[in-house]
């Protein structure tokens, strides 16, 4: 069973994604800031895919992605960005460091399809 790590500071969005992916056979871990996300990846089981919000208190998604790509254990994990500020490219990590961007409000079937593609289901 593939594991998804969700890093998002909106509790309701974590809950919705957890419900969606659990109902579709995934293991899901949700954390609400970038530091906790990196800690989870370094101390817990490696996720098969990471879904990360860009704008969060403390460490944002951009820094999480840059840190992941500099870490040999995490640099190959596929990443989906979810963001409400797709127009603000300053918040984005360099191109090529992530696999997909979904702009809020996203469609649940769309994010499920994208995860299935990237995990190879």
């Amino acid at each position, binding site marked *: 069973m593939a594991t998804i790590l969700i890093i998002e*500071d*909106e*509790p*309701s*969005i974590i*809950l*919705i*994604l957890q*419900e*969606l992916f659990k*109902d579709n056979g995934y293991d899901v871990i949700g954390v*609400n*800031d970038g530091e906790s996300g990196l800690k989870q990846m370094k101390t817990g089981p490696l996720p098969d895919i990471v879904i990360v919000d860009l*704008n*969060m*208190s*403390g*460490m*944002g998604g*951009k*820094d999480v992605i840059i840190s992941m790509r500099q870490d040999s254990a995490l640099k190959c994990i596929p990443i989906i960005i979810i963001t*409400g*500020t797709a*127009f*603000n490219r*300053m*918040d984005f990590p360099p191109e090529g460091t992530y696999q997909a961007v979904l702009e*809020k*409000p*996203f*469609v*649940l*079937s769309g994010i499920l399809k994208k995860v299935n593609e990237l995990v190879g289901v």
Partner: protein
Amino acid sequence: MAERLECLETNRRLFIQASSHELKNPITSIKGITSLIHMKLNAGKPVSDIIRMVEILEKEVDRLSKLLIEILEAFMTERNGMVLKTSFRKINITEVIQNVLKPLMAAESGYNFIFKTGGEDNIYILADPDRIGDVMRNLYNNAMKYSPRGSDIITRVQLLKDSVQVSVEDRGIGIPEDQTDRIFDSFYRGSNIRGNDPGGMGLGLYICREIVKKHGGSIWAENNADGGSKFYIKLPLCKEV
């Protein structure tokens, strides 16, 4: 004149960006929950699962509604000045603060901040308790938004000669020194938060200032020497015995 127009245009642009970001989160939740309910109904999931989703949906609709009310209130206040709907009454400022803090301090809130309070009790002011509560809630929300999780947020109530001074101190990112006044302007957001922006429309402190002014008081902010910021409100004491 040109500088003023440029400033207005910058604020307008920042407001559109910030408000669209703020509104997108509850809209994402509402859209997601309605899809989930549909999926769960189709999959024959138990009613208890669906009821939980409906409860979250209600909360998200409330949040969206509050954001829209905040935007409307800011525009109305800019045009006509702050209008308070209820008349003032004698209130204990410490009780107002405790009522605001209670849900934030509850373990189930998940906020994980250490709220400390100190100073004097039983200080009475003539005020609209709901709106003074709004001011305090806004100050705490800002402190939590821009401070590391688990850090201290300290409230002090100090009796002055004919007023009470309440301060809220955090261990957050602080305020650029040249912007401690401007953060109370409508649609203004500190330049040091635009990197890892946790969200906000730049309206909360503006509305706080207008509420406090309407009570005959003042609000201001300072940076702590050892990091973080400190927000003060000063309100006249109730003269009745």
